[in-house]
């Protein structure tokens, strides 16, 4: 090993380092819409029929989705509905928020700001407050606040990035609220990077036509979440950790009226009754769609889609999954982890094994990912690691050639630290990348106020569908969790004041689900929501047994 890389990879690195001066002013041409279409069709996993099938029951029957999504929808509940006593209510609240990540905490805070007493709110989460993808978002948050920019240009960028399949009123809400969100964050004390003249540092992102990516080094999501979390505690919002929801509850009028929670540690269930329920459970990265490694949090198992679907909510755009163009491909310990798009925003080029550029570095994410997969799948212009992983180079040292020494320390501290832990210095040597599963583009369909198609159920964040169409642009997810978290909080507060009491709680919708599943005659019985992914070794799983617990 020489400076973190084996000799076999060093030869290629030497070529990259030698060609850098020559490449510094070379700009690759970006693709036309027709060329984009072609590379996507040939190489993007979304377009590969082997990874997909249609949903076989319910309101989205016939929709073409990844096998892993169809699997969790075609699964039985993980408990027996007949064993649940709904007459004993453990928490009776105005607003139940399921999921305490970026969207959930934003919703909780805006419910309070809108006049809901804090003790009428219940925030629940599968793991800890802040175990979410929001804290892992590095690159930035889009907001069109510069004079040469406008929400209309942001709108156009987002629609084009989403292949014009986005729900227009949601995109309008997203881009119009952007500057408002940054203003709120500044009131909370967020440390967004600023230039010496006081203007915000704003970078480019793939598929954006203006620099509008606000950032806080490469800890942008972390910095946002630390502040929201601090406010949740300051506002004394009641919180239940290690208590995932395993089902939504309805009342006899068909309205969602709370949820069934499960305490991961004591293994007891509890019943929550709520006037309004906000679903902010995040996405499905840990389902490892199409067998890809993922950038996502441990808890991102798509539980929300299952619960919402059983309750009758309409889903959309789940046929499209975001593969981030640049996941780590070496060293093995960090394969699949996110290499922020900001590395490319700051000037790093994407290179083949001999150090020549292979694509324009700032295409929309799906196009960039497909362009890289094209190289690793259909050419020999890739680099192979000792464990057989294929990747291409991301020329990080070029950033400091362009912007000066110290740029990486100042802007990419998290990235630099991650590689330094494995003896790689990204200011000296390039880093090896390959696309990785990153984001659930679609989900539960919302309207601009956060309503789903089922009364009593709101949503926000990655669980939602429609905002990003068929592909999300960088920086629009941190914006989305804040915009729609806020909107859902405000809407829930209005519902709260209307004061309609939920009726008698029921799981009849789940019993109906079971009947529909029975009719499908699925050979292998599956159960969902997944709650946590399975990573124990096979040798151990082969020997698992269930003890009769009362004897322990």
């Amino acid at each position, binding site marked *: 090993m020489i400076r973190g890389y084996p000799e076999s990879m060093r030869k290629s690195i030497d070529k990259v380092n030698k060609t850098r001066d020559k490449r510094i002013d070379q700009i690759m041409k970006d693709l036309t819409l027709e060329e984009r279409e072609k590379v996507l069709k040939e190489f993007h996993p979304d377009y590969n029929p082997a990874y997909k099938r249609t949903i076989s029951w319910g309101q989205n029957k016939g929709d073409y989705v990844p096998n892993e999504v169809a699997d969790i929808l075609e699964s039985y509940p993980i408990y027996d509905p007949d064993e649940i006593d709904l007459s004993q209510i453990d928490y009776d609240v105005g607003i139940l928020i399921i999921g305490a990540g970026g969207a959930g905490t934003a919703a909780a805070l805006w419910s309070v700001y809108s006049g809901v007493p804090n003790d009428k709110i219940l925030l629940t989460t599968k793991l800890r407050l802040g*175990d979410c993808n929001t804290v892992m978002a590095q690159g930035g948050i889009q907001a069109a606040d510069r004079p040469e920019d406008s929400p209309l240009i942001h709108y156009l960028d987002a629609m084009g990035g989403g292949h014009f399949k986005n729900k227009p009123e949601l995109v*309008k809400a997203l881009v119009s609220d952007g500057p408002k969100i940054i203003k709120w964050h500044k009131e909370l004390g967020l440390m967004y990077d600023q230039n010496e003249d006081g203007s915000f540092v704003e970078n480019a992102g793939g598929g954006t*036509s203006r620099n509008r990516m606000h950032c806080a080094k490469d800890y942008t999501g972390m910095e946002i979440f630390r502040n929201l979390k601090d406010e949740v505690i300051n506002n004394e919002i009641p919180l239940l950790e290690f208590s995932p929801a395993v089902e939504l509850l309805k009342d006899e009028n068909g309205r969602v009226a709370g949820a069934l929670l499960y305490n991961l540690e004591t293994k007891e269930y509890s019943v929550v009754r709520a006037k309004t329920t906000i679903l902010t459970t995040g996405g499905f990265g840990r389902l490892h769609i199409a067998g890809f490694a993922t950038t996502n949090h441990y808890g991102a198992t798509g539980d929300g889609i299952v619960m919402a679907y059983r309750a009758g909510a309409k889903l959309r755009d789940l046929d499209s999954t975001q593969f981030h163009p640049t996941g780590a491909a070496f060293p093995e310990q960090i394969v699949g982890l996110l290499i922020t798009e900001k590395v490319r925003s700051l000037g790093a080029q994407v290179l083949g094994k001999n150090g020549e550029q292979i694509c324009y570095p700032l295409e929309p994410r799906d196009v960039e990912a497909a362009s890289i997969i094209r190289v690793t799948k259909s050419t020999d212009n890739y680099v192979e690691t000792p464990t057989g992983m294929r990747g291409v180079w991301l020329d990080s040292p070029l950033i400091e050639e362009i912007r000066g020494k110290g740029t990486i320390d100042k802007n990419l501290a998290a990235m630099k630290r991650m590689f330094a832990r494995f003896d790689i210095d990204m200011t000296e040597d390039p880093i090896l990348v390959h696309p990785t599963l990153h984001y659930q583009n679609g989900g539960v369909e919302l309207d601009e106020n956060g309503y789903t198609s089922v009364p009593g159920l709101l949503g926000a964040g990655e669980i939602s569908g429609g905002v990003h169409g068929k592909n999300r642009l960088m920086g629009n997810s941190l914006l989305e969790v804040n915009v729609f978290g806020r909107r859902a909080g405000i809407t829930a507060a209005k519902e709260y004041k209307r004061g309609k009491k939920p009726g008698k709680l029921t799981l009849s919708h789940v019993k109906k689900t079971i009947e529909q599943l029975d009719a499908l005659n699925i050979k292998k019985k599956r159960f969902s929501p997944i709650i946590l992914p399975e990573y124990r070794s096979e040798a151990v799983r082969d020997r698992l047994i269930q003890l009769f617990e009362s004897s322990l």
Partner: protein
Amino acid sequence: MAKAISMREKKEKLDTVTIYIMGQGYKVPSSLTIMKAMEYAGFKLKRGVGCRAGFCGACATVYRKLGDYKIYANLACQTKVEDGMYLTQLPFVPANKAEYNLDEIKPSASTMLRFYPEIARCLSCNACSRVCPQDIQVMDYVQYSLQGQIEKAAELAFDCIQCGLCAIRCPAEIPQYHVATLARRLHGKYHMIAPDTLEQRVKEIEEGKYEKGFEELMSLSEEELKKRYVARDFIDQKKA
């Protein structure tokens, strides 16, 4: 402690090391991180696991190595296993977070002392900095907080992922990572003032300046919208 070797482990062909999870020995592939090694050994993690990428601070792990008196600490998801590691995780840290209304306080030493009087007990032992998996100069930001140098405290503490290892090691019982949050928020709110352009844009949007534009864009057919998209100009972007 000698580890008992099972028949299955004897047959294992991978390059392995022995680690001790809360005192119990397991043979695991040497290429794994501590977190993945625990899973390989058969633990289905609920505590001490989070983002798995070094950002969330859930997997702070304390360990000693066989025959070495030193206490080490790091993140389980970012650290490779070594032979003879004795591991325990610190998935939760009891540490009081002060409650405050940021609108009613000012960035000063007295604010820091009011909410975290224990910072005055700092012994300058630097145990906090030495244990920090992010290599933050924790003691220095505690000292800056005490001196009212909020900007310096906030900047030094910026990369904190709130794992809480500092608070557990501190002989003066200071919850450093909460002190850091207060310093950062005071600095971000009162020193890093947003540019006027932000407020102007918010006002324009609230006054409906873009409503007509949206109406027009939203009335376009997909084909017309595509034309607009392709024709849009780029500012400050490197384009061919």
